[in-house]
Protein backbone atom coordinates (compact mmCIF):
# COMPACT_ATOMS: atom_id res chain seq x y z
CA UNK A 1 0.00 0.00 0.00
CA UNK A 2 2.82 2.36 0.87
CA UNK A 3 4.62 1.44 -2.30
CA UNK A 4 1.65 2.54 -4.33
CA UNK A 5 1.51 5.82 -2.53
CA UNK A 6 5.24 6.34 -3.02
CA UNK A 7 4.91 5.62 -6.73
CA UNK A 8 2.04 8.06 -6.96
CA UNK A 9 4.00 10.71 -5.09
CA UNK A 10 7.08 10.33 -7.31
CA UNK A 11 4.81 10.54 -10.31
CA UNK A 12 3.35 13.77 -9.04
CA UNK A 13 6.70 15.32 -8.22
CA UNK A 14 8.31 14.36 -11.49
CA UNK A 15 5.28 15.73 -13.31
CA UNK A 16 5.68 19.01 -11.47
CA UNK A 17 9.40 19.18 -12.18
CA UNK A 18 8.91 18.35 -15.82
CA UNK A 19 6.22 20.95 -16.42
CA UNK A 20 8.29 23.43 -14.43
CA UNK A 21 11.24 22.88 -16.76
CA UNK A 22 9.07 23.26 -19.83
CA UNK A 23 7.67 26.51 -18.52
CA UNK A 24 11.15 27.76 -17.69
CA UNK A 25 12.16 27.02 -21.26
CA UNK A 26 9.12 28.88 -22.58
CA UNK A 27 9.63 31.90 -20.38
CA UNK A 28 13.40 32.47 -20.52
CA UNK A 29 13.28 34.76 -23.55
CA UNK A 30 10.19 36.46 -22.14
CA UNK A 31 12.25 37.31 -19.09
CA UNK A 32 14.76 38.95 -21.40
CA UNK A 33 12.03 40.92 -23.13
CA UNK A 34 10.66 42.19 -19.85
CA UNK A 35 14.12 42.92 -18.50
CA UNK A 36 15.21 44.88 -21.54
CA UNK A 37 12.04 46.94 -21.58
CA UNK A 38 13.57 48.69 -18.62
CA UNK A 39 17.03 48.95 -20.14
CA UNK A 40 18.68 52.35 -20.24
CA UNK A 41 20.66 51.43 -23.34
CA UNK A 42 18.87 51.67 -26.68
CA UNK A 43 20.55 48.57 -28.01
CA UNK A 44 19.56 45.11 -26.82
CA UNK A 45 22.97 43.78 -25.99
CA UNK A 46 23.58 44.33 -22.32
CA UNK A 47 21.39 45.46 -19.53
CA UNK A 48 22.85 48.73 -18.41
CA UNK A 49 20.40 50.30 -16.03
CA UNK A 50 16.79 50.71 -15.05
CA UNK A 51 14.44 53.20 -16.62
CA UNK A 52 10.76 53.62 -17.37
CA UNK A 53 11.35 55.95 -20.32
CA UNK A 54 10.55 53.40 -22.99
CA UNK A 55 7.03 53.01 -21.72
CA UNK A 56 6.28 56.67 -22.35
CA UNK A 57 8.03 56.50 -25.73
CA UNK A 58 5.85 53.55 -26.58
CA UNK A 59 2.69 55.34 -25.55
CA UNK A 60 3.50 58.18 -27.92
CA UNK A 61 4.38 55.95 -30.82
CA UNK A 62 1.11 56.26 -32.72
CA UNK A 63 2.25 54.14 -35.62
CA UNK A 64 3.13 51.25 -33.32
CA UNK A 65 -0.18 51.42 -31.47
CA UNK A 66 -2.17 51.71 -34.69
CA UNK A 67 -0.32 48.69 -36.06
CA UNK A 68 -1.19 46.78 -32.90
CA UNK A 69 -4.86 47.70 -33.27
CA UNK A 70 -4.79 46.51 -36.88
CA UNK A 71 -3.30 43.20 -35.83
CA UNK A 72 -6.01 42.67 -33.24
CA UNK A 73 -8.76 43.40 -35.75
CA UNK A 74 -7.31 41.17 -38.44
CA UNK A 75 -6.58 38.36 -35.98
CA UNK A 76 -10.03 38.39 -34.35
CA UNK A 77 -11.96 38.51 -37.60
CA UNK A 78 -9.86 35.95 -39.40
CA UNK A 79 -9.94 33.61 -36.39
CA UNK A 80 -13.72 33.82 -36.18
CA UNK A 81 -14.26 33.16 -39.87
CA UNK A 82 -11.60 30.44 -40.07
CA UNK A 83 -12.99 28.69 -37.00
CA UNK A 84 -16.52 28.66 -38.37
CA UNK A 85 -15.50 27.42 -41.81
CA UNK A 86 -12.95 25.01 -40.39
CA UNK A 87 -15.34 23.40 -37.92
CA UNK A 88 -18.04 22.95 -40.55
CA UNK A 89 -15.47 21.41 -42.86
CA UNK A 90 -14.08 19.01 -40.27
CA UNK A 91 -17.51 17.78 -39.22
CA UNK A 92 -18.79 17.57 -42.77
CA UNK A 93 -15.80 15.58 -43.94
CA UNK A 94 -15.98 13.31 -40.94
CA UNK A 95 -19.62 12.53 -41.44
CA UNK A 96 -19.96 12.09 -45.13
CA UNK A 97 -18.21 10.22 -47.85
CA UNK A 98 -18.37 12.02 -51.14
CA UNK A 99 -16.54 12.33 -54.37
CA UNK A 100 -13.71 14.82 -54.22
CA UNK A 101 -13.19 14.34 -50.51
CA UNK A 102 -9.62 13.22 -51.09
CA UNK A 103 -8.99 16.25 -53.27
CA UNK A 104 -10.23 18.70 -50.67
CA UNK A 105 -8.19 16.90 -48.05
CA UNK A 106 -5.04 17.20 -50.12
CA UNK A 107 -5.80 20.84 -50.83
CA UNK A 108 -6.05 21.55 -47.13
CA UNK A 109 -2.40 20.72 -46.72
CA UNK A 110 -1.35 23.23 -49.35
CA UNK A 111 -1.67 26.47 -47.31
CA UNK A 112 0.39 24.79 -44.61
CA UNK A 113 3.19 23.49 -46.80
CA UNK A 114 3.38 26.15 -49.46
CA UNK A 115 6.25 28.53 -48.71
CA UNK A 116 4.83 31.71 -47.29
CA UNK A 117 6.36 33.92 -49.90
CA UNK A 118 4.70 31.91 -52.65
CA UNK A 119 1.33 32.12 -50.92
CA UNK A 120 1.83 35.83 -50.29
CA UNK A 121 2.64 36.61 -53.89
CA UNK A 122 -0.14 34.33 -55.12
CA UNK A 123 -2.73 36.00 -52.91
CA UNK A 124 -1.49 39.43 -53.95
CA UNK A 125 -1.94 38.46 -57.60
CA UNK A 126 -5.46 37.18 -56.96
CA UNK A 127 -6.39 40.40 -55.17
CA UNK A 128 -4.97 42.54 -57.95
CA UNK A 129 -6.83 40.50 -60.57
CA UNK A 130 -10.12 40.89 -58.75
CA UNK A 131 -9.37 44.53 -57.96
CA UNK A 132 -9.75 43.96 -54.25
CA UNK A 133 -8.17 46.93 -52.49
CA UNK A 134 -5.30 46.10 -50.20
CA UNK A 135 -6.00 46.75 -46.59
CA UNK A 136 -7.53 45.13 -43.57
CA UNK A 137 -10.05 43.17 -45.63
CA UNK A 138 -7.45 41.66 -47.94
CA UNK A 139 -5.33 40.71 -44.97
CA UNK A 140 -8.26 39.07 -43.22
CA UNK A 141 -8.97 36.98 -46.34
CA UNK A 142 -5.30 36.01 -46.52
CA UNK A 143 -5.13 35.07 -42.85
CA UNK A 144 -8.28 32.98 -43.07
CA UNK A 145 -6.69 31.08 -45.94
CA UNK A 146 -3.75 29.82 -43.95
CA UNK A 147 -5.72 29.38 -40.72
CA UNK A 148 -8.49 27.09 -41.97
CA UNK A 149 -6.30 23.95 -42.21
CA UNK A 150 -5.10 24.35 -38.64
CA UNK A 151 -8.66 24.55 -37.36
CA UNK A 152 -9.69 21.56 -39.47
CA UNK A 153 -6.81 19.38 -38.24
CA UNK A 154 -7.36 20.27 -34.61
CA UNK A 155 -11.11 19.68 -34.68
CA UNK A 156 -10.54 16.39 -36.49
CA UNK A 157 -8.29 15.24 -33.67
CA UNK A 158 -11.21 15.76 -31.35
CA UNK A 159 -13.65 14.07 -33.72
CA UNK A 160 -11.90 10.72 -33.87
CA UNK A 161 -13.95 8.19 -32.00
CA UNK A 162 -16.91 10.51 -31.97
CA UNK A 163 -20.06 8.56 -31.29
CA UNK A 164 -22.88 9.55 -33.54
CA UNK A 165 -25.54 7.65 -31.63
CA UNK A 166 -26.17 10.68 -29.41
CA UNK A 167 -26.96 12.73 -32.50
CA UNK A 168 -29.17 10.02 -33.93
CA UNK A 169 -31.04 9.69 -30.65
CA UNK A 170 -31.70 13.41 -30.62
CA UNK A 171 -32.96 13.33 -34.19
CA UNK A 172 -35.27 10.42 -33.39
CA UNK A 173 -36.66 12.55 -30.62
CA UNK A 174 -37.53 15.20 -33.17
CA UNK A 175 -34.65 17.65 -33.14
CA UNK A 176 -33.77 19.08 -36.55
CA UNK A 177 -30.20 19.11 -37.87
CA UNK A 178 -29.44 22.65 -36.93
CA UNK A 179 -30.44 22.07 -33.33
CA UNK A 180 -28.43 18.87 -33.18
CA UNK A 181 -25.37 20.60 -34.54
CA UNK A 182 -25.41 23.56 -32.22
CA UNK A 183 -26.66 21.89 -29.07
CA UNK A 184 -24.93 18.53 -29.23
CA UNK A 185 -22.10 18.39 -31.74
CA UNK A 186 -20.52 21.74 -31.00
CA UNK A 187 -20.47 21.46 -27.19
CA UNK A 188 -18.79 18.07 -27.40
CA UNK A 189 -16.27 19.38 -29.91
CA UNK A 190 -15.80 22.66 -28.10
CA UNK A 191 -12.32 21.96 -26.68
CA UNK A 192 -11.11 21.10 -30.17
CA UNK A 193 -12.80 24.12 -31.69
CA UNK A 194 -11.32 26.41 -29.09
CA UNK A 195 -7.88 24.92 -29.55
CA UNK A 196 -8.16 25.44 -33.27
CA UNK A 197 -9.27 29.02 -32.74
CA UNK A 198 -6.36 29.69 -30.40
CA UNK A 199 -3.92 28.33 -32.96
CA UNK A 200 -5.48 30.40 -35.74
CA UNK A 201 -5.25 33.50 -33.56
CA UNK A 202 -1.61 32.81 -32.70
CA UNK A 203 -0.75 32.32 -36.37
CA UNK A 204 -2.43 35.53 -37.33
CA UNK A 205 -0.85 37.83 -34.76
CA UNK A 206 2.60 36.60 -35.72
CA UNK A 207 2.30 36.51 -39.47
CA UNK A 208 4.84 38.54 -41.39
CA UNK A 209 5.50 37.43 -44.92
CA UNK A 210 1.92 37.03 -46.08
CA UNK A 211 0.92 40.23 -44.32
CA UNK A 212 3.72 42.10 -46.06
CA UNK A 213 2.30 41.23 -49.44
CA UNK A 214 -1.36 41.71 -48.65
CA UNK A 215 -1.26 44.86 -46.57
CA UNK A 216 -2.21 48.30 -47.80
CA UNK A 217 -0.54 51.61 -47.12
CA UNK A 218 -2.37 52.29 -43.88
CA UNK A 219 -2.94 48.84 -42.52
CA UNK A 220 0.51 47.75 -41.44
CA UNK A 221 0.49 45.18 -38.69
CA UNK A 222 2.31 44.82 -35.40
CA UNK A 223 4.69 42.03 -36.44
CA UNK A 224 5.72 44.02 -39.52
CA UNK A 225 6.39 47.06 -37.37
CA UNK A 226 8.29 44.94 -34.85
CA UNK A 227 10.42 43.49 -37.63
CA UNK A 228 11.35 46.99 -38.73
CA UNK A 229 12.47 48.11 -35.33
CA UNK A 230 14.06 44.92 -34.13
CA UNK A 231 16.05 44.66 -37.34
CA UNK A 232 18.00 47.75 -36.46
CA UNK A 233 18.81 46.28 -33.09
CA UNK A 234 16.94 49.08 -31.38
CA UNK A 235 13.61 48.21 -29.92
CA UNK A 236 13.09 48.86 -26.24
CA UNK A 237 9.74 50.50 -26.84
CA UNK A 238 8.60 47.37 -28.65
CA UNK A 239 9.77 45.37 -25.64
CA UNK A 240 7.80 47.76 -23.45
CA UNK A 241 4.65 47.18 -25.49
CA UNK A 242 5.20 43.43 -25.44
CA UNK A 243 5.62 43.42 -21.67
CA UNK A 244 2.43 45.42 -21.37
CA UNK A 245 0.59 43.00 -23.65
CA UNK A 246 1.71 40.07 -21.52
CA UNK A 247 0.57 41.81 -18.35
CA UNK A 248 -2.80 42.86 -19.76
CA UNK A 249 -3.57 39.47 -21.32
CA UNK A 250 -2.54 37.73 -18.16
CA UNK A 251 -4.74 39.93 -16.01
CA UNK A 252 -7.78 39.63 -18.26
CA UNK A 253 -7.55 35.87 -18.49
CA UNK A 254 -6.86 35.29 -14.81
CA UNK A 255 -9.68 37.60 -13.76
CA UNK A 256 -12.21 36.03 -16.13
CA UNK A 257 -11.17 32.55 -15.12
CA UNK A 258 -11.49 33.37 -11.43
CA UNK A 259 -14.99 34.66 -12.08
CA UNK A 260 -15.93 31.56 -14.07
CA UNK A 261 -14.45 29.34 -11.38
CA UNK A 262 -16.31 31.13 -8.62
CA UNK A 263 -19.55 30.96 -10.59
CA UNK A 264 -19.10 27.23 -11.17
CA UNK A 265 -18.48 26.71 -7.49
CA UNK A 266 -21.63 28.61 -6.66
CA UNK A 267 -23.69 26.57 -9.06
CA UNK A 268 -22.48 23.27 -7.68
Amino acid at each position, binding site marked *: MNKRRAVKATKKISARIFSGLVFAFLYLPIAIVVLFSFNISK*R*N*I*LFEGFTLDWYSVMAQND*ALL*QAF*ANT*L*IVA*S*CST*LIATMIGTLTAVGMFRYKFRGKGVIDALLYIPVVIPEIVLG*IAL*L*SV*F*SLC*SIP*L*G*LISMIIAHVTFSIPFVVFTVRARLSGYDRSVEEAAMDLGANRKKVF*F*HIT*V*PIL*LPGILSGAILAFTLSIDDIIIS*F*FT*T*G*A*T*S*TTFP*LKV*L*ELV*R*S*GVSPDVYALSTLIILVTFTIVVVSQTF*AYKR*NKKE*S
Partner: protein
Amino acid sequence: MKKESKPNPRIIRRAAALFLSAVLLGGTLLTAGCSTSAKKELNVFVWTEYMPDTVFKAFEKEYGVKVNVTTYSSNEDMLAKIKGSNEGIYDIVVPSDYMVKMMISEGLLQKLDQKKMTNLTNMDTSFLNQSFDPGNAYSVPYMGGVVALCVNTKMVKEDITSFSQIFDPKYKGSLVLLDDFRAVIGETSKSLGYSLNTTDDKELTAVGNKLAELKPNVKLLDSDSPKTAMLNGETSIGYMWNAEIAICMQESPDFKIVFPSEGTYMFLDNLCITKGAKNSDTANDFLNFLMRPEISKLVSDEYPYLNPNKAAVALLPDSYKNSPASNIPSDVIAKGEYVQDIGTTVEKYDQLWTTFTE
Protein backbone atom coordinates in the same frame (compact mmCIF):
# COMPACT_ATOMS: atom_id res chain seq x y z
CA MET B 1 -20.09 12.29 -16.47
CA LYS B 2 -17.33 14.71 -15.94
CA LYS B 3 -18.50 17.90 -14.37
CA GLU B 4 -16.91 20.34 -16.75
CA SER B 5 -18.15 23.85 -17.16
CA LYS B 6 -20.15 23.40 -20.34
CA PRO B 7 -20.78 26.85 -21.69
CA ASN B 8 -24.23 27.31 -23.16
CA PRO B 9 -23.88 27.30 -26.94
CA ARG B 10 -26.55 29.94 -27.35
CA ILE B 11 -24.60 32.32 -25.18
CA ILE B 12 -21.45 31.55 -27.11
CA ARG B 13 -23.12 32.34 -30.38
CA ARG B 14 -24.52 35.60 -29.10
CA ALA B 15 -21.22 36.57 -27.56
CA ALA B 16 -19.38 35.76 -30.78
CA ALA B 17 -21.83 37.79 -32.83
CA LEU B 18 -21.54 40.73 -30.44
CA PHE B 19 -17.77 40.53 -30.37
CA LEU B 20 -17.52 40.35 -34.14
CA SER B 21 -19.82 43.30 -34.65
CA ALA B 22 -17.97 45.30 -32.02
CA VAL B 23 -14.66 44.57 -33.65
CA LEU B 24 -15.95 45.36 -37.14
CA LEU B 25 -17.54 48.55 -35.89
CA GLY B 26 -14.38 49.56 -34.12
CA GLY B 27 -12.36 48.73 -37.19
CA THR B 28 -14.55 50.71 -39.52
CA LEU B 29 -14.49 53.68 -37.17
CA LEU B 30 -10.74 53.57 -36.92
CA THR B 31 -10.16 53.34 -40.63
CA ALA B 32 -13.07 55.63 -41.51
CA GLY B 33 -11.71 58.22 -39.15
CA CYS B 34 -8.59 58.34 -41.21
CA SER B 35 -10.25 58.75 -44.58
CA THR B 36 -13.10 61.09 -43.72
CA SER B 37 -10.60 63.74 -42.68
CA ALA B 38 -10.34 65.74 -45.88
CA LYS B 39 -6.59 65.88 -45.38
CA LYS B 40 -4.39 65.04 -48.29
CA GLU B 41 -2.30 61.93 -47.92
CA LEU B 42 1.05 60.69 -49.05
CA ASN B 43 1.93 57.00 -49.14
CA VAL B 44 5.62 56.38 -48.68
CA PHE B 45 7.25 52.99 -49.19
CA VAL B 46 10.79 53.16 -47.87
CA TRP B 47 13.61 51.04 -46.44
CA THR B 48 13.46 50.30 -42.74
CA GLU B 49 15.61 52.61 -40.64
CA TYR B 50 16.10 55.08 -43.45
CA MET B 51 13.74 58.04 -43.03
CA PRO B 52 13.36 59.53 -39.58
CA ASP B 53 10.07 60.51 -38.03
CA THR B 54 11.30 64.08 -37.65
CA VAL B 55 11.25 64.49 -41.41
CA PHE B 56 7.71 63.15 -41.77
CA LYS B 57 6.42 65.31 -38.94
CA ALA B 58 8.05 68.41 -40.43
CA PHE B 59 6.49 67.71 -43.83
CA GLU B 60 3.07 66.97 -42.33
CA LYS B 61 3.19 70.24 -40.43
CA GLU B 62 4.24 72.42 -43.31
CA TYR B 63 2.07 70.95 -46.04
CA GLY B 64 -0.95 69.83 -44.00
CA VAL B 65 -0.63 66.31 -45.36
CA LYS B 66 -0.90 62.97 -43.61
CA VAL B 67 2.05 60.72 -44.34
CA ASN B 68 1.57 56.94 -44.27
CA VAL B 69 4.80 55.01 -44.06
CA THR B 70 5.31 51.37 -44.96
CA THR B 71 8.72 49.76 -45.01
CA TYR B 72 10.62 47.07 -46.79
CA SER B 73 14.05 45.60 -46.26
CA SER B 74 15.19 44.81 -49.77
CA ASN B 75 14.80 46.17 -53.28
CA GLU B 76 13.34 42.90 -54.42
CA ASP B 77 10.70 42.86 -51.67
CA MET B 78 9.67 46.30 -52.82
CA LEU B 79 9.66 45.30 -56.50
CA ALA B 80 7.57 42.19 -55.86
CA LYS B 81 5.03 44.23 -53.94
CA ILE B 82 4.81 47.01 -56.52
CA LYS B 83 4.65 44.64 -59.47
CA GLY B 84 2.03 42.47 -57.86
CA SER B 85 -0.28 45.27 -56.80
CA ASN B 86 -2.47 47.58 -58.79
CA GLU B 87 -1.01 50.96 -59.68
CA GLY B 88 -0.74 53.74 -57.17
CA ILE B 89 -0.76 51.76 -53.97
CA TYR B 90 2.24 53.78 -52.88
CA ASP B 91 3.32 57.22 -54.10
CA ILE B 92 6.98 57.23 -53.19
CA VAL B 93 9.50 54.40 -53.39
CA VAL B 94 13.24 54.42 -52.71
CA PRO B 95 14.99 52.05 -55.10
CA SER B 96 18.73 51.57 -55.33
CA ASP B 97 20.73 52.36 -58.44
CA TYR B 98 20.16 49.20 -60.52
CA MET B 99 16.59 48.93 -59.35
CA VAL B 100 15.79 52.39 -60.72
CA LYS B 101 16.87 51.22 -64.15
CA MET B 102 14.77 48.06 -63.87
CA MET B 103 11.70 49.91 -62.72
CA ILE B 104 11.99 52.49 -65.49
CA SER B 105 12.18 49.77 -68.13
CA GLU B 106 9.17 48.02 -66.61
CA GLY B 107 7.16 51.23 -66.68
CA LEU B 108 6.69 51.35 -62.94
CA LEU B 109 7.90 54.93 -62.39
CA GLN B 110 6.66 58.27 -63.58
CA LYS B 111 8.70 61.23 -64.72
CA LEU B 112 9.37 63.87 -62.10
CA ASP B 113 7.94 67.36 -62.36
CA GLN B 114 11.26 69.10 -63.05
CA LYS B 115 9.75 72.52 -62.37
CA LYS B 116 9.30 71.52 -58.74
CA MET B 117 12.83 70.17 -58.31
CA THR B 118 14.28 73.55 -57.38
CA ASN B 119 16.52 72.12 -54.69
CA LEU B 120 18.34 69.80 -57.05
CA THR B 121 21.12 72.39 -57.15
CA ASN B 122 22.01 71.44 -53.58
CA MET B 123 23.25 68.08 -54.78
CA ASP B 124 26.84 67.14 -55.35
CA THR B 125 26.93 66.84 -59.16
CA SER B 126 29.06 63.70 -59.07
CA PHE B 127 25.95 61.87 -57.89
CA LEU B 128 23.66 63.24 -60.59
CA ASN B 129 23.09 62.10 -64.14
CA GLN B 130 23.98 58.50 -63.44
CA SER B 131 23.83 55.78 -66.06
CA PHE B 132 20.78 54.23 -64.44
CA ASP B 133 18.74 57.45 -64.92
CA PRO B 134 20.28 59.95 -67.32
CA GLY B 135 19.28 63.51 -66.60
CA ASN B 136 17.50 62.48 -63.39
CA ALA B 137 14.22 62.22 -65.25
CA TYR B 138 12.76 59.71 -62.81
CA SER B 139 14.83 60.00 -59.64
CA VAL B 140 16.75 62.23 -57.30
CA PRO B 141 19.52 60.86 -55.07
CA TYR B 142 18.67 60.25 -51.43
CA MET B 143 21.43 58.56 -49.49
CA GLY B 144 24.30 56.34 -50.46
CA GLY B 145 27.23 54.45 -49.16
CA VAL B 146 29.57 51.58 -49.57
CA VAL B 147 30.00 48.15 -48.15
CA ALA B 148 33.26 48.00 -46.25
CA LEU B 149 35.08 46.09 -43.56
CA CYS B 150 34.60 46.75 -39.88
CA VAL B 151 37.53 45.57 -37.80
CA ASN B 152 37.57 45.08 -34.06
CA THR B 153 41.14 46.16 -33.38
CA LYS B 154 41.06 44.61 -29.92
CA MET B 155 40.40 41.17 -31.34
CA VAL B 156 42.33 41.47 -34.60
CA LYS B 157 46.03 42.27 -34.33
CA GLU B 158 46.80 42.18 -38.02
CA ASP B 159 46.51 45.31 -40.12
CA ILE B 160 43.63 44.72 -42.49
CA THR B 161 43.66 46.60 -45.75
CA SER B 162 42.06 44.34 -48.31
CA PHE B 163 39.10 42.01 -48.68
CA SER B 164 41.30 39.06 -49.66
CA GLN B 165 42.75 38.97 -46.14
CA ILE B 166 39.50 37.70 -44.64
CA PHE B 167 39.85 34.43 -46.58
CA ASP B 168 42.73 33.47 -44.30
CA PRO B 169 41.93 30.30 -42.34
CA LYS B 170 43.00 31.99 -39.13
CA TYR B 171 39.68 33.88 -39.19
CA LYS B 172 37.64 30.72 -38.97
CA GLY B 173 34.18 31.38 -37.59
CA SER B 174 34.84 35.04 -36.90
CA LEU B 175 33.18 36.92 -39.73
CA VAL B 176 29.80 38.53 -40.12
CA LEU B 177 28.88 39.19 -43.75
CA LEU B 178 25.89 40.83 -45.32
CA ASP B 179 23.28 38.30 -46.38
CA ASP B 180 23.52 39.77 -49.86
CA PHE B 181 24.77 37.55 -52.63
CA ARG B 182 25.58 40.38 -55.06
CA ALA B 183 27.72 42.12 -52.44
CA VAL B 184 29.64 39.08 -51.22
CA ILE B 185 30.09 37.46 -54.62
CA GLY B 186 30.82 40.81 -56.20
CA GLU B 187 33.50 41.75 -53.72
CA THR B 188 35.06 38.30 -54.04
CA SER B 189 35.18 38.91 -57.80
CA LYS B 190 36.91 42.21 -57.21
CA SER B 191 39.45 40.60 -54.92
CA LEU B 192 40.38 38.36 -57.85
CA GLY B 193 40.68 41.41 -60.11
CA TYR B 194 37.36 40.97 -61.89
CA SER B 195 34.38 43.32 -62.10
CA LEU B 196 31.69 43.40 -59.44
CA ASN B 197 29.22 42.44 -62.16
CA THR B 198 31.18 39.86 -64.10
CA THR B 199 29.26 37.49 -66.33
CA ASP B 200 32.23 35.52 -67.60
CA ASP B 201 31.89 31.78 -66.96
CA LYS B 202 35.57 31.13 -66.30
CA GLU B 203 35.77 34.05 -63.88
CA LEU B 204 32.64 32.89 -62.06
CA THR B 205 34.06 29.40 -61.60
CA ALA B 206 37.16 30.96 -60.03
CA VAL B 207 34.91 33.04 -57.79
CA GLY B 208 33.04 29.90 -56.75
CA ASN B 209 36.27 28.25 -55.68
CA LYS B 210 37.33 31.31 -53.73
CA LEU B 211 33.98 31.39 -51.96
CA ALA B 212 34.60 27.85 -50.75
CA GLU B 213 37.63 29.22 -48.88
CA LEU B 214 35.51 31.94 -47.31
CA LYS B 215 32.73 29.65 -46.15
CA PRO B 216 34.28 28.24 -42.96
CA ASN B 217 35.22 31.73 -41.80
CA VAL B 218 31.63 32.92 -41.68
CA LYS B 219 29.99 32.96 -38.29
CA LEU B 220 26.78 34.52 -39.51
CA LEU B 221 25.13 36.29 -42.41
CA ASP B 222 23.09 39.30 -41.40
CA SER B 223 21.77 42.14 -43.49
CA ASP B 224 19.48 43.51 -40.81
CA SER B 225 21.81 44.55 -38.06
CA PRO B 226 25.32 43.19 -38.53
CA LYS B 227 26.59 45.79 -36.09
CA THR B 228 25.01 43.80 -33.26
CA ALA B 229 27.33 40.85 -33.85
CA MET B 230 30.31 43.21 -33.87
CA LEU B 231 29.20 45.14 -30.81
CA ASN B 232 28.63 42.10 -28.62
CA GLY B 233 31.88 40.47 -29.62
CA GLU B 234 30.44 37.55 -31.56
CA THR B 235 32.60 38.40 -34.54
CA SER B 236 35.89 40.22 -35.00
CA ILE B 237 35.53 41.36 -38.61
CA GLY B 238 32.42 42.42 -40.44
CA TYR B 239 31.57 43.13 -44.07
CA MET B 240 28.68 45.56 -43.86
CA TRP B 241 27.07 48.89 -44.73
CA ASN B 242 29.13 51.95 -43.88
CA ALA B 243 26.43 53.46 -41.68
CA GLU B 244 26.47 50.34 -39.52
CA ILE B 245 30.25 50.67 -39.21
CA ALA B 246 29.84 54.34 -38.33
CA ILE B 247 27.53 53.37 -35.47
CA CYS B 248 30.03 50.78 -34.21
CA MET B 249 32.74 53.41 -34.26
CA GLN B 250 30.51 55.80 -32.34
CA GLU B 251 29.96 53.17 -29.66
CA SER B 252 33.59 52.24 -29.15
CA PRO B 253 37.02 53.36 -30.36
CA ASP B 254 37.99 49.69 -30.78
CA PHE B 255 36.29 49.62 -34.16
CA LYS B 256 37.73 50.98 -37.33
CA ILE B 257 36.54 51.08 -40.91
CA VAL B 258 38.61 49.61 -43.70
CA PHE B 259 37.81 50.30 -47.34
CA PRO B 260 38.95 47.23 -49.28
CA SER B 261 41.90 48.16 -51.46
CA GLU B 262 40.37 46.22 -54.34
CA GLY B 263 37.56 48.76 -54.55
CA THR B 264 34.18 48.80 -52.90
CA TYR B 265 30.58 47.88 -53.66
CA MET B 266 28.84 51.23 -53.84
CA PHE B 267 25.17 52.00 -53.68
CA LEU B 268 23.07 55.07 -54.21
CA ASP B 269 19.45 55.05 -53.14
CA ASN B 270 17.03 57.29 -54.93
CA LEU B 271 13.63 58.83 -54.45
CA CYS B 272 11.10 57.99 -57.14
CA ILE B 273 7.40 58.40 -57.78
CA THR B 274 5.40 55.39 -58.92
CA LYS B 275 3.36 55.33 -62.07
CA GLY B 276 -0.29 55.98 -61.29
CA ALA B 277 0.55 57.51 -57.93
CA LYS B 278 -2.56 58.96 -56.37
CA ASN B 279 -0.85 61.99 -54.93
CA SER B 280 1.73 63.00 -57.56
CA ASP B 281 1.69 66.69 -56.68
CA THR B 282 2.35 66.07 -53.02
CA ALA B 283 4.92 63.45 -53.96
CA ASN B 284 6.90 65.89 -56.07
CA ASP B 285 6.71 68.41 -53.23
CA PHE B 286 8.04 65.78 -50.84
CA LEU B 287 11.00 65.03 -53.06
CA ASN B 288 11.93 68.68 -53.24
CA PHE B 289 11.36 69.00 -49.50
CA LEU B 290 13.86 66.22 -48.82
CA MET B 291 16.49 68.00 -50.84
CA ARG B 292 16.44 71.01 -48.52
CA PRO B 293 19.74 71.13 -46.63
CA GLU B 294 18.17 71.37 -43.17
CA ILE B 295 15.85 68.43 -43.88
CA SER B 296 18.57 66.32 -45.41
CA LYS B 297 20.64 67.06 -42.34
CA LEU B 298 17.89 65.55 -40.16
CA VAL B 299 18.27 62.30 -42.07
CA SER B 300 22.03 62.17 -41.61
CA ASP B 301 21.65 62.97 -37.93
CA GLU B 302 19.82 59.68 -37.45
CA TYR B 303 21.29 57.49 -40.15
CA PRO B 304 24.92 58.28 -40.88
CA TYR B 305 25.03 57.28 -44.53
CA LEU B 306 26.82 59.10 -47.31
CA ASN B 307 24.84 62.25 -48.01
CA PRO B 308 24.97 63.39 -51.66
CA ASN B 309 23.50 66.77 -50.68
CA LYS B 310 26.46 69.19 -50.59
CA ALA B 311 24.51 71.93 -48.87
CA ALA B 312 23.36 69.52 -46.16
CA VAL B 313 26.85 68.18 -45.52
CA ALA B 314 28.03 71.75 -44.92
CA LEU B 315 25.53 71.94 -42.02
CA LEU B 316 26.61 68.66 -40.46
CA PRO B 317 28.77 68.56 -37.33
CA ASP B 318 32.47 67.78 -37.50
CA SER B 319 31.81 64.35 -36.06
CA TYR B 320 30.16 63.50 -39.37
CA LYS B 321 32.58 65.32 -41.62
CA ASN B 322 35.59 63.75 -39.95
CA SER B 323 34.19 60.26 -39.87
CA PRO B 324 35.39 58.35 -42.92
CA ALA B 325 32.56 55.89 -42.33
CA SER B 326 29.95 58.56 -43.07
CA ASN B 327 31.78 61.13 -45.09
CA ILE B 328 33.38 58.67 -47.42
CA PRO B 329 36.68 59.83 -48.93
CA SER B 330 36.38 60.78 -52.58
CA ASP B 331 39.10 58.37 -53.72
CA VAL B 332 37.05 55.49 -52.35
CA ILE B 333 34.01 56.73 -54.24
CA ALA B 334 36.05 57.04 -57.41
CA LYS B 335 37.11 53.39 -57.13
CA GLY B 336 33.66 52.18 -56.16
CA GLU B 337 31.44 50.08 -58.40
CA TYR B 338 27.68 50.02 -58.55
CA VAL B 339 25.83 46.76 -58.84
CA GLN B 340 24.23 46.29 -62.26
CA ASP B 341 21.44 44.12 -63.52
CA ILE B 342 23.08 41.14 -65.23
CA GLY B 343 20.08 39.58 -66.89
CA THR B 344 19.82 35.83 -66.69
CA THR B 345 23.39 35.41 -65.43
CA VAL B 346 21.95 36.16 -62.02
CA GLU B 347 20.89 32.52 -61.97
CA LYS B 348 24.56 31.51 -61.97
CA TYR B 349 25.18 33.88 -59.05
CA ASP B 350 22.24 32.30 -57.27
CA GLN B 351 23.76 28.88 -57.81
CA LEU B 352 27.07 30.04 -56.35
CA TRP B 353 25.23 31.41 -53.34
CA THR B 354 23.22 28.21 -52.85
CA THR B 355 26.48 26.28 -52.73
CA PHE B 356 28.01 28.86 -50.41
CA THR B 357 25.09 28.64 -47.97
CA GLU B 358 24.47 24.92 -48.12
